[in-house]
Every structure is written in C-alpha cells, then in structure tokens.
C-alpha cells in the first residue's frame, strides 16, 4: 500500500501552557481554597468533620491517660511523701485509667473505621467523576501527550490522595489534638511550664520548614534521576539488537553507569534530610525537658506545683516530640496530596466543549446530504486548522478528501461527526444543524471508522455489537454477510467468539479495520466517514478491506480521508485540502488534467508504484 503522508498528524499536536485547559491547573491556588472547593465537590466530607474531631479526641484521651496516671499515683498514692503507699487509692486510679484506655481504644476503632469509609467514598466519587469527564471532553483533547496526563488524573493523582488518606490524614487529625491536649494538661498543672514548653519548641518550626524545602528539592532531583535511569535501561533493552549490531556495548555501559550513579547520589541527598527530621524534634524535646526540670525544681513554690505534676510534666515533654516529628514528616506528602487534589478537581470542573442538546432534533434515516458553510476551526492553541470551508455534498455521493499532512482534512472529518465544534460556521445534515441533533440521532446517522482499529478486550462478536447495542446474533451475521466476510470469520480460531485481546492485539491492523467496518455496517448509518489506514497491510487482508468498503458504501453518503490513489480514483468527487481551505474539487479525471496540488500528488503516487 502506498503511503503518501506517514508520520504523526500535526492536527493533534500537543498544545501547552494555556490557562483554561483541563490539564494544567493554576498552581498558585492556595491549599485552603483547594480544600474548600474539594469539600464543595464531595459533600460526604462535610459530614465527616465531627467524626474527625471525635477520633482525634479519643486518640488523645488514650495517650494522655498514662502521664496523668503517673501524676495521680505519685500525688494521691502517697509516693511523694515517702510514707506508706495508699494501695486502695492506686487501685481505684488504675481501674479508672484502664476504663478510659479501653473506652478510648473502642472510640478510636469506631471513628477511624467510619472516617476511612467516608474518605474512600469520596475518593471513589472523585475518581469516577474524573473518568466520566474525560470521555465527555472534546476529541481535540485526546492525543498521545494529553492521554498520559488524563490517565494520571484518574490513576496516580487519585492514588496520591489515597496514600495520603491512609497515613498523612490520620496524623493530621491526631497529632495537633495530641499536642494541644498535652499542652492543656501541662497548663492545668502549671501554665508557665506549658508556655516554657511551647517556647522551647518554637525554633523547631522554621528549622522544619527549611529541612522540608530542601527535602522537596532533593526528592524532585531524585525523581528526575530515576526517570533518566529507567530510560537508560530501556535503551539497553529495546535497543538490544542495534547495540549488538553496532558493537556499542561499552558506550551503553558507560551511559547506564552514569545514570545509576546519579540516582544513587540524589537518593542519598534526599535521605540526609529524612534522617534529620526526627532528630530535630528529639533535640528540642531535650531542651524543653531541661527547662521544665530546672524551672520546676527552682520555682516549685511560686508555681504551686506538686511532685507528681512535675514528673508528669517531664513525661509529657518526652512524649510530645513524637507527634511533632510525625507532623513534620507528613508535610511533604500533604503538599503532594493537595496538588493532586487540585489537579483532579480542575479536570472535573473544566467545561465540556461538546454537549448534546436535550431532547434535540432527529434526522430521518437514509443517505445524508451535507451542507457545510464557512467552517473555521482551531485547537486550543495554534493557528486555524480550518479556515472558511464551504461545501455541499449531495446525498449518496462518494467523496474522497486528499491533502498533505496538516492540511486540515482529518479535522474536517472529525467535525462532520461532531467530535469537536467549530468556532465559526455550520454543518447541516439533511438540513438539521449538527449541534441541534440529539446524541442518539447523530450516532445513528453518522458513523466514523477511525484509522486506528482499536478494539476492546472482549470477543470479536461483542466488539461488533458495540456498533449497535441490543443487536442480535442474526443482525451481526447479516452485517458480516453484507460485507461478504463470512470466510474471514470462519477462519478465526473461535469464530466471532475469538478474543480480540488487549487493544485488539490478537488481530492484525487490517483485521481490526475489518471488525470496525462490520461494526459500522451493523449501525447502518446514512453518512459513513472513513479514515483510511496508512500502515502497511498484507495483500490478502487488503483485498478484503477494499471489497468490504465498496459494499458498505453502497446506498450511503461516504466521506473518505484518502491516502491511496485507488480510493481517489474510485470516488465521485475529490476534494483537495490545503492549509485549511479547499484548494480543488472535482472528479479525479478532471483534476488530473488541471495543474495544481492534485496533479502533483498524483505524480508522486504514480512515481512510487511504477
């Protein structure tokens, strides 16, 4: 098969850096605003506020029981005045504490369970909303670069949030309550001591922020280094044949070594900051401990503090370092989670370009007459792809669209089946403006057979049935017969029950197109839009495709994006696109005589094959 314009269709080139697109949200939006928007998007969260508070309090209650028990035992159990121990008093205390600890544990269990459930419901809704949104975006948003970003929104971004829910979130709930609770108990014993502890820990905050920033940078560098290393390995594996054919093992080994070393160094740098976080909290705890000890002993009378209270205070200072260190450790993952949340919300909130009217107009069945008037279109960024295109195609005509890569021919075909809406101009099918047609009527009337024969991981029969849900086996058999492809179906290992495999990988490119054609035949549309494959197909399948297309075309209006001379020759009318405009139009035999783009294209076709 002759390929006139190989390579990527620049109609779908990535466009970067635009504010109002679903990919790059405004990074400057603050965390608070994100959280507010997030709560608005997921009402489940609002009901979780009380639960959250209850859980924080129950955890704090359980943990604070111990220092209070120590204090009470010393002060009321009689340990401080070296006399006899008041055993009944201690027993009563222990029973109370055990009751409190058990109650707190049960409360903790119940609230944590409920809270997690809420969080998972929210994540589920976020993920499925984002997924549904992706399929409602105009097709202009689906290209290779974009696909990766959209995929990240419903997978890794939601996962980042899920990870945060599992760890960081609980620390955010419990740690502040614990810290405040401990300070509160201290303040009850002696408020000046509580102030001293708070003041002693103050300088740790800027230090934490500094470590945090350095760590974030170090982590970024590490992530980049991992990417480089993996592509280096990927070269060694996917380029294995070339590496051996050209004997460049040594060169590749050096590349690999460099990237492995770089990853190692960046990881160590990131580890350095990790190692510091806990130590900072620990050292400041030692300072606070010393402060409380010295002041408590020196000014015990002025402070009005008892022995047990002072010991309990020392105890609390020892404990308070834990939640502080934990809180500082989750700051990092919190930033990641907030930014992931922002991205997912941005996708969900982005406007839909192509919305179907409800109820919408209905076109009658039968071949479609197309009226295109003054059509202009451009993607989010970039120049106009179509510029004032007008054409009228009578019903039942077979039109071939030709043009060089980037001439706008593919975009034109996409607008005909409303995969995107034009900025200016109109398209009328049998007199009905395409934007006013109901979704179902449009799908029944217009059917596109795309170039990439993408199949779902299901049986071939099911893949065909997607063309018209509810179609019976007889309908499918009829469609197969119509295209005279019975022999091909019989040759499949399990007939129509043969599994297509992931993306249709069990079939060749040409065979996947056959399935797409049968699918279109099942839908019986009045307007058929064919995007011819450019990739090579083996001769036998190629003959089958040509025959099937001919039979499918009978009695319909057909618009083909032609890459082959034969298709153009066989059409009723050839439309030549150039730089977003229609440059030439007419039957093949006339255009060939005219000097112009078509003649040049024709020369290349002929030259290539003879």
């Amino acid at each position, binding site marked *: 098969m002759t390929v006139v314009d190989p*390579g990527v269709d620049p109609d779908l080139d990535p466009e970067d850096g635009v504010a109002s697109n679903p990919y790059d949200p405004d990074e400057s939006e603050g965390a608070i605003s994100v959280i507010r928007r997030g709560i608005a998007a997921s009402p489940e969260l609002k009901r979780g506020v009380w639960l959250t508070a209850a859980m924080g309090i129950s955890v704090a209650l359980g943990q604070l029981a111990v220092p209070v028990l120590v204090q009470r035992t010393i002060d009321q159990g009689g340990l401080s005045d070296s006399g006899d121990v008041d055993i009944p008093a201690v027993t009563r205390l*222990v029973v109370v504490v055990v009751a409190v600890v058990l109650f707190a544990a049960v409360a903790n269990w119940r609230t*944590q369970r409920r809270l997690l459930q809420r969080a998972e419901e929210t994540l*589920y809704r976020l993920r499925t909303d984002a997924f549904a949104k992706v399929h409602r975006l105009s097709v202009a948003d689906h290209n290779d670069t974009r696909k990766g970003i959209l995929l990240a929104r419903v997978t890794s971004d939601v996962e980042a949030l899920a990870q945060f829910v599992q760890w960081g979130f609980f620390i955010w709930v419990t740690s502040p309550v614990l810290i405040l609770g401990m300070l509160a108990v201290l303040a009850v014993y002696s408020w000046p001591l509580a102030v001293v502890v708070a003041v002693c820990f103050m300088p740790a905050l800027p230090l934490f922020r500094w470590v945090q920033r350095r760590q974030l940078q170090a982590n970024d560098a590490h992530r980049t280094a991992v990417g480089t290393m993996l592509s280096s390995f990927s070269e060694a594996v996917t380029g294995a044949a070339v590496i051996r054919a050209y*004997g460049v093992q040594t060169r590749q080994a050096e590349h690999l070594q460099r990237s492995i070393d770089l990853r190692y160094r960046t990881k160590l740098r990131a580890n350095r900051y990790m190692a510091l976080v806990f130590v900072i909290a620990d050292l400041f705890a030692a300072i606070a401990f010393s402060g409380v000890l010295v002041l408590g002993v020196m000014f015990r009378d002025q402070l009005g503090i008892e022995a047990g209270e002072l010991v309990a205070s020392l105890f609390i200072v020892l404990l308070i370092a834990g939640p502080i260190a934990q809180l500082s450790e989750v700051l990092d993952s919190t930033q990641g989670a907030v930014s992931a949340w922002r991205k997912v919300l941005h996708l969900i909130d982005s406007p839909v370009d192509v919305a179907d009217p409800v109820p919408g107009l209905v076109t009658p069945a039968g071949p479609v007459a197309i009226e295109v008037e003054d059509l202009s279109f451009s993607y989010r960024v970039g120049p106009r792809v179509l510029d004032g295109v007008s054409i009228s195609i009578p019903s039942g005509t077979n039109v071939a669209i030709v043009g060089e890569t980037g001439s706008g021919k593919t975009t034109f075909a996409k607008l005909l089946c409303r995969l995107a809406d034009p900025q200016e101009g109109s398209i009328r099918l049998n007199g009905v403006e395409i934007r006013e047609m109901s979704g179902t009527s449009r799908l029944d009337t217009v059917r596109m057979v795309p170039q990439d024969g993408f199949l779902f991981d299901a049986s071939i029969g099911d893949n065909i049935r997607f063309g018209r849900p509810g179609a019976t086996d007889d309908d499918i058999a009829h469609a197969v017969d119509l295209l005279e492809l019975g022999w091909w179906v019989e040759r499949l290992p399990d007939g129509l029950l043969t599994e297509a495999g992931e993306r249709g990988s069990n079939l060749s490119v040409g065979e996947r197109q056959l399935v797409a054609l049968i699918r279109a035949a099942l839908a019986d549309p009045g307007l058929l839009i064919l995007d011819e494959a450019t990739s090579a197909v083996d001769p036998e399948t190629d003959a089958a495709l040509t025959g099937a297309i001919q039979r499918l075309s009978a009695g319909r209006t057909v618009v083909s994006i032609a890459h082959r001379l034969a298709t153009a020759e066989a059409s009723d009318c050839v439309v030549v696109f150039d730089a977003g405009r229609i440059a030439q139009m007419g039957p093949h035999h006339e255009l060939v005589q005219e000097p112009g783009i078509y003649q040049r294209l024709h020369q290349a076709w002929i030259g290539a094959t003879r």
Partner: protein
Amino acid sequence: MDLPAHSPSRSVLGLGLRLVVRMYRMHPLAASVAVFGAFLTAIGIVGSTVVIGWVTDNVVLPSFEPGSTIGLTDALWGVVAVACVAVIRSAGSVMRRYYAGMTTQQVERSLRERLGRYYLQLPMDFHQRSMAGRLIAHADNDTMMATHVLDPVPFTLGTFFLLIFAAISLITIDLTIAVIALLIFPAMYTLNRIYTVRIEAPTAAVQAGVGRVSSLAHESFDGALVVKTLGRAEAESERFNASSARLRNDRIHVGNLRAVFESSLDALPSLGIAAVVLIGAYRIDAGAMSGGDLVQVVSLFTLLAFPMRVLGFFLEMVPRSVVSHRRLQTVWNERLPEVRTAPSSERPRSSRASTLEVRNVSYTYPAVSRLDDDEDAEAGPRLIQTQAPQEILKDVSFSVAPGQVVAIVGGTAAGKSTLCSLIAGLTRPSAGLVALDGSDVIELPADTRADHVSLVFQESFLFADTIAENIAFGTPDRTRLDAAMAIAAADGFVSELPRGVETVVGERGVTLSGGQRQRIALARALYRQPGLIILDDATSAVDPVVEKRILDALRNQLDTTAVIVAQRLSTIELADSVVFLRKGTVAGAGQHGDLLQLPAYRSLVEAYEEAST
C-alpha cells in the same frame, strides 16, 4: 512462638535472613555504621528512661520534701544527664537512618550495575525470549523491593539490643515487674505479627485493584475516539465504576482491619503501664523499689511501643524481598558470554565489497516465556512458556558475489528477518554457517563487526542523543558523516533541524517521522562503509520516490554487497537476483523474471503490485 497459619514459613524467613547477610556483605562498611548507630539509639532510649527515673528519685521527689536542700546544682546535673542521653540518641538515630539508607542504596546500585551488565552482554536470543517490560521492571521495582528488607534491619537489630538492655534494667529494678513486662512484650510482638499476616492478602488485593483500575482507564482512554464514535462513554463509565467500587471496598476492608489493630496496638502499652503501676505500688509499699524506679519502668513501656512495630515491618518485608530477589535471579541464571579482551584475529576493514555465502543454515527460535504473576515466596517465580520453540529456517543456502544486490522476498513469517539477523552475525545458527569473505561471521569481534557487515532494522531505533552520535557513536569523521547522510537522503531534513546533526533526538519536541528515523538508521550503517549491508525492510516508511533515490545511490555510489528484504515491486526490480523464501526454506532463487514462473512467487508479487495502487 505460635504463628498464624500463613505466616512466612521458617524456610522463607531463613532465605530472607541469608539474603540480608549476603547483601550486607556486599557493602559491610555502611552496614556496620548503621548497626552501630542502632546500638547507640538503643542505649540512648534506655538511658533516657534511666535518667527520668534518676531525676525523679534524686531531684524531683526530694525537692518536694519538707526542708529539702535540693537546688539549682542538682537540677543542672539532671540537665547534663538529659543532654548526654539526647546527644547519644540523636547521633545514633542519624547514623542509623542515614547509613541504613546508604547500605540499601549501595546494594541497589550494585544490583542494577549487575543487571545492566547482563542486559548488554547476554546474546540477542535472551532479549528475544524476554519481554522488555519485565526486564525494565527488574531494574526498577524488583530491585527496590529486593533491597527493601534491608531498611528496617538496623532498627530491628536495635530493637533486640533495646530488649536486652530493657530486660537488664528491669531485672536490676525488680524481678516481679520484670516478669510482668517480659510477658507483655511477647504479647505486643504477637499482636503485631497477627496484624502483618492478616493484612497481607487484603493489601495484595488492593495492589491488584490499583493495577486493574489503571489498566482499565488506560485501555478506555486509548480507545477514546472509538468510545466517542460509538457513543459508549456511559458504558465505559459503568465498567470503570464497577472496578473502582471493588477497589474502594477492598480498601475499606483493609481500613477496618487496620482500625482494629491500630487501636489495640495503641492501647496495649497503656494497659501494660496500668498493670505495672498497680504492681509497682505494692512493691513500693513493700519497700522493694522506689517511685523513680516506677517512673523509669513506665517510660520504658512508652518508648518501646514503636520499636516493636518496626519488628513487624521487617517480618512483613521478608517474603516480598525474597520473591523480588528471585525474579532478578532469573536474569543471573543466564550464562554471560566470555568477553574477549584481546582483539583476536582482527582483520583490516575491507574497503571493497564482500562475498557472502550462506551454507545449509537452519534456525530454531527459542521458547518465549513470561514470569507468572501469582507467585508465592516459597515456590519462587515460575516461568510460563507462552510460545513453544519454532523452527524458522531450514537448510537455507545461497551465495552473493561481491557488489551484487540480492532481494529477499517472502510472505509473512517466511523467516526474512531471522535470516538477516543470522547473516549479520547477531544470532548463531542452530546448524550451518554464514561465511563473509570465507570466514564465519559469528567469529567477528563484536565491537568491529559493524565495519564488515551492517544491518539496518525494520524498526529504526534511535538513542536519546544527538543525530551525529546516533550515526557515528563517538567523534564523527565529518566527510564520512556527510557522505552517509547524503546517500541515506537524510541531509536535507537534518540541516533544517534547529541544531543540525547536533540536535538531540526526542528533546524539546524534536520528533522525527518514521521515514526520517529510518533514514538516520540507514546513515548509521552507511557511515561504516561495510563490505556487506543488509536492509531488513528498512525503507518501508520512506516515501517511495525517496526510497528509489536511496537504493539507486546505494548501487551506484558505493562498492558494497547488499541484501535487501523487499516489499515493493520497485525494490525487487532493482535487485540483481532474488531469493524467494517460503516457510523457512528457499523456494526459488534467480532472476525476478525467471522466478515469475513459480505460481506462489507470482501471486505474492502481484499482491504487492495490487496493494501499492
């Protein structure tokens, strides 16, 4: 100790410990520092409980006694003790964390270096029978998981030190209390163990669910255009929602388990402390211990809770690391070819076309296998054979005189690409011999083989490097580079690139079309001016007009023998002779006109002709 039924069996634990020892031996220095750090941390933790007990007995309680003489000096002694303990603990903790990380990273680096060596030096058939994705995963996730077990090791060892010190300090305080305590620690350990074992399967289910959801999304977005043209967006959403709902339920299940165990693990030390306080009160009453001793024991319990958890992490990691390491082992079980140090039988590069002789060559394609995903730690990874060995070529013989152009023609799966690989000396024939100028092509030294015979592949592979580097690999000879690019018709578009031959492929949106990539790959072969050049359908994406120009130049401007796999009639007509392959055997050889007598050949060529119009 009784462990639940599906805990890692002794053998896996044994394997894991042996793995740890083996990895530690690779980088003993950093590992030793980390363990020493853990030792210091343990001393620091127990030390801080001793200090708080001492301070209680000797500073705090006495100072509250009537007529106490305790003043600033005594308090300052307490401060000094606290400072010393804090410094020891912090230094130990930094050493442990940093050097434990370093050990893991050093081992990871060594494992990756080793993998890289194998990937680059193993013969081509290794790559043919392994999936690329699997090999990349080995270098990425598998290596990380294999070394994961090392992370908690110093802390775990530290926990053992800690338990020993704690036991000693408890016994010196009071035997009764020590016995109670020594009962509670195993209870915490067991609870931990049950938790890590119970959570393992649900966690794995969540992991699998994450994979399922993401591959579903991947498939669905890949087919976005089809989804749209078929109006299947809602059906796709339903499919995705079902899968997400399952993941959500699995996660909630894990969360419920965690809620139970986390709250129990939080409560257990507090309950232990309550018991200790009660018994302690009796012991103090009996005069067997002091108030400070009690405070010391209580704080020991508080501080020990976390290290007990780390022990659980370690046990959780063991089976995963053992499994991952076994996956790496599948690569290392291959035999590395001996690397020849001295360039043996180095032949001067033939500046003229070579003679090629293919004598009775047969080739059987090795079995293809993939790793079974549902593996368990004890059985180790299973390789599932996905494709049986296949005989691709059978007794193929032909010869090509210097300067001749031979076209290889054959339908799908006739063995054309395999034949190319055998002629280029990349693959060793199962039987027979490929002779280049009379000597076996497989014996040519790997690093200079391309100077004698260059193969251009169907799929053009470019390195993420400059175009010049992609062609010359090293400092290029400008004249030869320009000549090669001119013949390959690559000079035109390369000169239009922002930085010409210094443009880095794939960077800043410099994307090349399939045809352009093929022309660079072709220039790579031509640059070496080999005596034999093999084109394995290497111009399929090049515009036919340009292709003809390239092949003409190849013929007329170079003194080289050429073997060309042809898919177009125009290419076949260009060749001096044709070898017609069918199902791995030579079904005919000679002039194109003569071969047309063969019905099979004629119908194939006619199909090519048909397809191109």
